[in-house]
């Protein structure tokens, strides 16, 4: 009787020990990275692209400090209050080492609570210049170009392209602050060639009154600060329907997401970008872009869109900073972010000295049909100019109005 009892006891003890020690012995504890973005509604493809880019960059990275990386994705609905709630959850419950994703609304909301969250937040889809200028925070970095950089790029386009330089400019956008900022910029840059502007209600589906207004003003170049998604598709389709695209050049201030380009198809060839945040055809000049595009296509079966390229670049910056810091200690990671330079899909990236804005180029050029489709894409932006940050951004954060505490 003694032997079976001993055997049973040993077995139970071993089982208990296995269960107790299982996770620690079986696999290393993961490094958790939070992703905050839009997951629902008609604009959700932007969120999908952001997540897909982060996933591919994570796959390319492999283990970080010898540990697997775990992504924890939270829906923000592009809502400031919800973003703060979800970011707090990511930090306090999930213990994330950094937060990625986020657009302007969420990023500006997180700046206000960044000192409380105390983790690096690297946004890749936020245009509002204030984020890395007067409202900058020690904890919040940005890899995509901000609005004032786009204005500088527009100046460059006008100088280099006589057809656009002598065009009569009209700003057509939705009635929200970003449109007015774009209009002010275009007016400032084009001077006497600025012939008008109109701001449509956000629920506009019939653009015919605005097309009539553009025509009446005699515009030959239209800066479209229209919400990316269904409204932009509707406008471009209706502009083509009215024959406006034969009279005027359509201009996208920050480029178009590639899922939108795919929807537009041949209509996209009426559009030129004066400052895309990223362009997958940069692979023709930058090997890191090509490498990323190939892995992305294998993983997701589609072309790497503008937001994917940007979010991947932000992710690579964070992973390299964690490697350099040798830990996920937030202070150490922030210090590392300030000094690293990383080869990313949008080019070699580093942050502005004394600031939080990445020295990222803007990609200028027209959308065109590809002779041979690549990564499933038939239409894409040609990168005519990769406009360097040295020409669009003050040399230091302090020069840009960023006073870090």
């Amino acid at each position, binding site marked *: 009787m003694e032997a079976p009892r001993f055997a049973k006891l040993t077995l139970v003890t071993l089982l208990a020990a296995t269960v107790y020690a299982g996770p620690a012995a079986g696999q290393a504890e993961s490094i958790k990275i939070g992703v905050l973005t839009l997951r629902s509604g008609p604009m959700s493809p932007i969120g999908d692209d952001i997540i897909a880019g982060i996933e591919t960059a994570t796959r390319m990275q492999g283990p970080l400090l010898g540990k697997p990386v775990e992504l924890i994705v939270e829906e923000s609905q592009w809502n400031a209050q919800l973003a703060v709630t979800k970011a707090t959850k990511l930090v306090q419950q999930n213990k994330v080492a950094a937060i990625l994703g986020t657009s302007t609304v969420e990023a500006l909301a997180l700046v206000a609570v960044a000192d409380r969250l105390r983790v690096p937040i690297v946004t890749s889809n936020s245009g509002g210049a204030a984020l890395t200028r007067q409202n900058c925070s020690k904890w919040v970095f940005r890899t995509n170009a901000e609005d004032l950089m786009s204005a500088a790029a527009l100046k460059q386009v006008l100088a280099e392209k006589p057809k656009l330089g002598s065009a009569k400019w009209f700003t057509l956008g939705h009635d929200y602050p970003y449109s007015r900022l774009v209009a002010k910029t275009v007016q400032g840059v084009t001077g006497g060639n600025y012939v008008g502007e109109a701001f449509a209600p956000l629920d506009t*589906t019939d653009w015919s009154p605005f097309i009539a207004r553009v025509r009446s003003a005699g515009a030959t170049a239209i800066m479209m600060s229209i919400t990316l998604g269904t409204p932009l598709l509707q406008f471009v389709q209706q502009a083509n*329907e009215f024959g406006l695209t034969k009279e005027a050049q359509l201009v996208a201030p920050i480029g178009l997401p590639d899922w939108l380009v795919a929807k537009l198809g041949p209509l996209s060839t009426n559009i030129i970008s004066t400052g895309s945040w990223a362009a997958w055809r940069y692979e023709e000049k930058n090997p890191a872009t090509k490498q990323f595009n190939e892995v992305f296509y294998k993983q997701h079966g589609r072309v790497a869109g503008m937001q994917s390229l940007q979010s991947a670049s932000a992710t690579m910056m964070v992973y390299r900073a964690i490697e350099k810091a040798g830990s996920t200690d937030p202070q150490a990671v922030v210090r590392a972010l300030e000094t690293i330079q990383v080869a990313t899909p949008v080019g070699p990236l580093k942050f502005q000295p004394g600031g939080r804005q990445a020295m990222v180029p803007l990609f200028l050029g027209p959308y065109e049909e590809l002779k041979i489709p690549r990564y499933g894409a038939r239409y894409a932006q040609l990168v005519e100019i990769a406009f360097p940050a040295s020409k669009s951004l003050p040399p230091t954060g302090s020069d840009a109005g960023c006073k870090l505490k």
Partner: protein
Amino acid sequence: MDINFLLANTLNGVVYGAFLLLTSLGLSLVFGLGRVVNFAHGALYALGGYALIVVMQQSAGYWLALVLGPLLVVPLAIAIERAAIHPLRSRPEIYTLLVTFGITFMIIGALEYIWGTGTTLVEVPSPFAGTVTILGNPYPVYRLVAAGLSLLVSATVFAFIQFSAIGLQIRAVTDDAGMAEAIGVNTKWLLTAVFGAAAGLAAFAGALGAPIFAIHPDMGSGILIDSFLAVILGGLGNLPGTAVGALFVALTKSIGGGYVAEWSLAILFVVVAIALIFRPTGLFGRGRVA
């Protein structure tokens, strides 16, 4: 701004008004007949767009799909009426309003589940893809064709209501449902049939407008607001009033959008509010306040 600009926007308004009339008629009919404030009308409009896609995917051309697509929506609408609205007929109007509001979310959710949240562009059918010059400006032929078709279908509906035996029953129920029932009109059947027909009209509008406004799950919400404004302004349940309301809403949006884009929506709501202050039953209402 010159007179040419004003005329261009007036034309835009008339074209949009013709289209809006098509969507407003169904709303007005259903309310007039059964006092049902049908918030699902916009979702049924969206279903029309998706039905068009489904039929076109079966290698049917645009015009065949334009006829068959909306017909697919009719039985679904009848099923919705029998299952969700019919049992609430004796309840106050707020019940059907809330139910149709809920149905809207269910339909949009189903569309998103099946087709995703993205937008589908539909090419303008080839014979009408170009422009004609009107008032010195190119104008899309398809918009004129769509407006013409909208007016034709609307005129057919008016004629049917005015001259057919069923139309007589519809008018009788709209005027006095109790009396109509007392003399043998089957009001329950009539509402079911009219609800289905109104859904067919909305779906037809969704399909007809697809090459202009594109197709996406939430495509009905904007047109629903404009349609409600047209119906309220014209007088709930009053078909000629609805026609005038649709034209007024469309012209205000179009001309307002041309001159004071930022204020066009506000102006529209203010005008409707003022009209309702002085004419609570709508401009052509006949003493009935919902």
